[in-house]
C-alpha cells in the first residue's frame, strides 16, 4: 500500500505548481487553472488524510465530505470567474492581467 507521505508530497507539489501558476502567469484564464489545481491538491490531501485517520480500512468520512464541497465550490468559482473573464474580454479585448491597471494609487 502506498504510504501517506507519498500522497502528501504529491499533493504539496501539485499545490506549489498551482500557486506558482496563479502568481506568475499573466493570462487570467491560466491563472484560473492554477487556482483549480490548488483546490485539487487540497482534495488529494483531504482524501489521503481521511484514509490515514481511519481504523481497519474504514476512512473518516468527514474529510471526504469536505472534498465534495470543495469540488462544488470550485465549480461555482469557475462559473463566476469565466463570467468575469468574458466581461473583461469585452471591455478590454484581452485577458492579460498586466492590463489591469486602471485602479491604482
Amino acid at each position, binding site marked *: 500500500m502506498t504510504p501517506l507521505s507519498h500522497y502528501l508530497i504529491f499533493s504539496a507539489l501539485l499545490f506549489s505548481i498551482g500557486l506558482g501558476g496563479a502568481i506568475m502567469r499573466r493570462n487570467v484564464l491560466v491563472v484560473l487553472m492554477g487556482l483549480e489545481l490548488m*483546490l485539487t491538491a487540497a482534495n488529494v490531501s483531504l482524501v489521503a488524510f481521511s484514509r490515514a485517520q481511519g481504523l481497519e480500512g474504514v476512512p473518516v468520512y468527514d*474529510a471526504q465530505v469536505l472534498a465534495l464541497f470543495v469540488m462544488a465550490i470550485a465549480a461555482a468559482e469557475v462559473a463566476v*470567474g469565466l463570467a468575469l473573464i468574458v466581461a*473583461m474580454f469585452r471591455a478590454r479585448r484581452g485577458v492579460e492581467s498586466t492590463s*489591469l491597471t486602471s485602479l491604482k494609487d
Partner: protein
Amino acid sequence: MSTINLISTSYTWEQFTPTFVLVGLALLILIADAFLPRFNKKVFPILGALISTGLACFTAGSSASSLFSTLACAATAVCLLMAYDYRKLVYASVAGGEHEDGAAEFTALPLLACAGVCALIRSRDLIMLFVALETVTLASYAMAGYFRRNQGSVEAGVKYLILGAVSTGLLVMGAAWFFGTTGSFRGDPRFVLAALCNPHLSAGILVSMGLLLAGIFFKAGAVPMHTWIPDVYQGAPTPVSAFLAVVSKLAGFVALLIILLPFVYLRTTVNDMMQGLIVLLAVVAAATLLVGNLGAIPQQNTKRLLGYSSIGQAGFILVFFVTLQPTIISPVFNYLLAYGIATLMAFFALATLRMQRGSEDISAFRGLGKSNPRTAFMITVSFASLAGVPLTAGFLAKLSSFQALVSTLIRPHHVVHWLLPIMIICAASGFYYYFKVLRAMYWDQPQQNDAPVTFSPLCTAVLTAGTLLLIVLGVIPLLF
C-alpha cells in the same frame, strides 16, 4: 455576553433560520424577476431590506452569535437601501438605463452573502466554516464585478476573484492539514493540545494554522493579504464596497474568532508556542495598522481612502486578538458596530455625491458645509467617529483597543510592548486623513457651476439614525 461554545458541535435547524429565510427570499426575488415581467422592480431592494431588518430583530439576543447575526442582517439591510438609492446607476450598468433590469440580482446577491455570514456565525467546525465563507465570497465576486460595462468594476471583480481564490486554496489546504494532525475538523482544544505535544505532529499543525490564518486574514483585510482592498473598494459599485467593508469584514473576524478559540483555551498550557502565536498576531496587527493608516494619507479617492481606513481599523481589531483572552468577543463586536455604522454612513453619503456630482474624489465633498449644513454635520460625525473623536462611539472603540493591549502589558512575560507606540502613531494619523474630507466640506470653496446636492429622504433618514446611534453610544457607554 456568553462566549462561543466550541465543544458542543451539534447543529439545530433553528440556528439556521436566518440563513434559510435569506436564501429563500433571494430565490423568490430571482424567480419573480424572471417570471413576472410587469412586477415593479424597484420593490426588490426595499423588500430585501425589510426582511433583513426583520431578521435582525428576530435574531436579536444576548449571546455572541445572535449579536453578530443582528449586525450582519442590519448592515445588509442598509446596503440594500443604498442599492435602492443607487438604482439609476444599476439600471444604466445593465441595459444602458433603458430598462429596469439588474435590480433583482443586485438584491439577491447581498442576501445570499448575508445568508453565508449568518451560517458562518453558527459554524463550529471547519467544513461549515469553509462552505459559509465561500458562500459570502462567491456572491461578493459577482457583486464586485457587477457593472460589467465599467472597466473599474470588472477589474475589481477579476482582482478580487484571483486573490480571493488563492486564499480559498490556502484555507482548504489548511483545513486538510488540521484534519490530518488533529483527526477532526472541530477545533477541540484537547485534540489540538494532543497534536501540539506530539513531536511528529506539531510541525503539521503549525503549517495548518499558518495556512488557515492566511486564508482568513484575506477576508479580514489584514497584512499581508490586504492588497485587494483599496482596488476592489474603488472599482466596485458603492453599495458593494459598503457591503464588503462591513459585512464581509465581520465575516472575516468571526471566522478568526472561531479558528483561534482552541488557542484561547490553551493559552496557559503550551507556553512557548502560545508566545509564538501572540508575537505572530502582534506583528500582523502592527503591519496592518501601519499599512492601513499610512497608506490612507496620500489618497484622493474617497472609496480608496475608506479602503485603507478599513485596513487600519482592522489593525485595531486585531490588537484584541493579540491578548488571546476569552473576553475579546464583546469588544470585537463593539468595535465592529462602531466602525460599521460610521462606514455605512460615509458610503451612503458618497453614493449620493457620486450620482449628483459624478465624482468619488474627496473634492466631491466641497462646499457641503455651506450648501447642506445639516447633512455636512452628519457626515462630520461619521468621519469623526472613524477617527476616534471623543463623544462618538469610535472613540470608545479605539479606547477599548488600547485598554486591551495595556492590560496585557502589566502581566509578566509580556512580549508585545512595542505595539503601543505604533497604535498611537496610527490613531494620530487617522485624524489627518479623515479630516481631509471635513476640510473639503467646510473650507473648500464650491465651484461656480455647483448645484446644491439634494440628499434623498432615505439617505437623510439613514444618516440621521446613524448619527444618533454614534453619539448615543459615544456619550452613554452602554456597550463599552
